[in-house]
């Protein structure tokens, strides 16, 4: 059974940019697997897929969790098994989590010794998938939210969604009067409540499990995810983040953040400027010159640094689908739902790290101990510090490099992933919660730049933007 599942997972391609590909691949796999025709009704297929994916991931999940309570006595093991079974049933029924469940399965297949924090991180980067809505349902929701139908509010409201969004979908339309093109994001009814309830149940099932001491801060991690979720389901929060981001850039800086139309937005409807452009993969297919790719690389770094240093706003998910390469050469940035606004402590911590980039050995070690939230004894562990240091050096390398840094160099990105993997494998995962989001941002931005094969003078941009002058 394990071999089959392994092959199954390996055979499933996963590309964040194309929602269709894994679906089709899974369809094919399923056909082979079941040797019979699939039900063709959309909903029917949706449920079958959800269940199978959940089962695949669950097989790994069970295997992995069990390894965590291997050392316990029989009574405690049985107790854990009961909780585990119930949690799995719940997980399998959460259809909006099918993408996340599959990702979890893949990660567990590749890293069977991942640690609870990694699991929590995966849960934290879920993209909740809502079932697609037809226009008649959408019109009802829209009217509930705004008191009028889309046709009354907009011109040319397109009844077909042009993109799926976390928790909903996005439609194109035009503003009456100005004719300006807008994107209207609409949330599936009651999905926020469903997710919240499911999370609460999941927490209630998982937390009583008795595990090794590494599970200690799982409660905190869950709480962090829940808070993130609360922010993400509230489109008004996203609108606020977008307005902060919008003010961060001057017209000539060529970074475009869509403007929000508050009069046509609520907690579940978000109306914003439509950004015309293509995603990274399509952009690369046009064979852009090195100079053009470098310029876009510059814009990607500038946007990330400016928001972070200038507006205390961390765009924690620099996913390729959130960047638009616009026909006029500008860079469009969307999806501010899972942004993190720094606290005073966060800024203080980050300032210390910033100073360490060019600081003394002592300053570096001090910032690493703080980053890892380490006890003095842990801070004295050479191996732990060495890996932490390697990770920091990797993040800092382009900031220390005079002149353009080659982000496309094959070994650079690989090295970062390898260090991160080592940190996880050795279970050196204790760290400030902020670091999970920061790591996501660092790796995400560098992954984009690597795919762009861009040479960018990150140091100059950093020097210009950082608050530690």
């Amino acid at each position, binding site marked *: 059974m394990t071999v089959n599942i392994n092959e199954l997972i390996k055979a499933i391609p996963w590309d964040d940019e194309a929602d269709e590909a894994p679906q089709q691949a899974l369809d094919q796999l399923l056909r082979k697997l079941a040797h*019979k025709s699939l039900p063709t009704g959309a909903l029917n297929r949706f449920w079958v897929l959800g269940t199978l994916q959940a089962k695949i991931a669950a097989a790994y999940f069970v295997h992995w969790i069990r390894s965590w309570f291997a050392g316990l006595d029989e009574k405690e093991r049985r107790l854990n098994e009961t909780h585990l079974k119930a949690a799995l049933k719940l997980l399998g029924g959460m259809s909006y989590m099918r993408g996340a469940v599959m990702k979890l399965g893949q990660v567990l297949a590749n890293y069977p010794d991942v640690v609870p924090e990694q699991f929590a991180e995966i849960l934290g980067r879920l993209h909740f998938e809502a079932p697609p809505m037809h226009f008649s*349902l959408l019109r009802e929701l829209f009217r509930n939210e705004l008191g009028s139908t889309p046709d009354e509010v907009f011109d040319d409201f397109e*009844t077909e969604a042009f993109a799926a969004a976390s928790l909903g979908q996005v439609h194109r339309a035009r503003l009456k009067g100005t004719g300006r093109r807008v994107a209207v994001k609409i949330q599936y009814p009651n999905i926020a409540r469903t997710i919240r309830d499911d999370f609460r149940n999941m927490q209630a099932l998982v937390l009583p499990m008795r595990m090794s001491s590494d599970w200690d801060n799982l409660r905190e991690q869950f709480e962090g995810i829940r808070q993130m979720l609360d922010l993400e389901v509230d489109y008004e929060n996203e609108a606020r983040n977008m307005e902060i981001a919008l003010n961060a850039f001057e017209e000539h800086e060529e970074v475009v953040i869509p403007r929000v139309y508050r009069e046509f937005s609520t907690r579940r409807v978000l109306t914003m400027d439509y950004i015309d452009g293509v995603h990274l993969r399509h952009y690369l297919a046009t064979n852009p010159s090195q100079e053009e790719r470098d310029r876009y690389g510059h814009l990607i770094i500038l946007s990330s640094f400016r928001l972070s240093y200038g507006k205390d706003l961390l765009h924690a998910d620099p996913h390729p689908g959130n960047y638009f390469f616009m026909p006029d050469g500008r860079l469009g940035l969307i999806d501010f739902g899972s942004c993190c606004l720094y606290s005073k402590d966060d800024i203080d911590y980050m300032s210390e790290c910033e100073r360490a980039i060019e600081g003394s050995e002592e300053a570096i070690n001090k910032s690493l101990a703080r980053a890892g939230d380490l006890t003095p004894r842990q801070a004295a562990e050479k191996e732990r510090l060495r890996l932490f240091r390697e990770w920091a050096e990797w993040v800092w390398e382009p900031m220390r490099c005079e002149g353009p840094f080659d982000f496309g160099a094959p070994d650079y990105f690989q090295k970062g992933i390898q260090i991160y993997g080592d940190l996880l494998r050795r279970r050196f995962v204790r760290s400030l919660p902020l670091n999970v989001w920061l790591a996501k941002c660092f790796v995400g931005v560098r992954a984009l730049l690597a795919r762009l094969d861009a040479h960018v003078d990150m140091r100059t941009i950093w020097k210009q933007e950082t608050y530690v002058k």
Partner: protein
Amino acid sequence: MRVTRQTKEKTRQRILKAAFDLFVGRGFYETTTRDIAAKARIATGTLFNYFPTKEALAMEIIAEALESGRDDYAKLRRGEESLAEDLFLFIITGLRKLEPHRTYLASVVETALSPFTSSNNNRVGEQVRVDHLEQIASLLAAHQVTDQPSFVVIHIYWALYLGILAFWSTDDSPNQEDTLVLLDHALGLFVASATNSRSRLEASHDGQH
């Protein structure tokens, strides 16, 4: 003659309005035909010339609401809807028109549309059921699912529809959004079973070999 018919219609409307106000204000079971007659300023006996029972009267109100929902459906329909969306639109336009009657709908449905009572019990209720199901049959035909839906398909539909009405009448989620979710999923199930029941049977049959 014309004047008499007009007067009759006016009285009828007055009764319906009086009944509606009382049902909403006081509740269906708490309202008597005597109350309605008094509020409509007619003799109780006169009321029975128009409506044989309180249930028939209430069902008449519901039937009229559903009728005007059908007009909205015709207006909003774009002609490119999938079967599930078409059914959704048909039902939701009816629910929108039933909105003012939501508080007492359950009581009326219970007496006039209950699947447990004989179909002759409430003539108006029976007519509503027949009209509604005819509409569904022609909708299924328009989507080339079947020209003659079997009693199984029709009964599955009717059970879902009554279930949705019942759920909606007590749905206290904001803007009854839970009903939207239920309706969306229920129709997905219905369409799957109406369009797929044959192929599913074949598939499970194949699977046994």
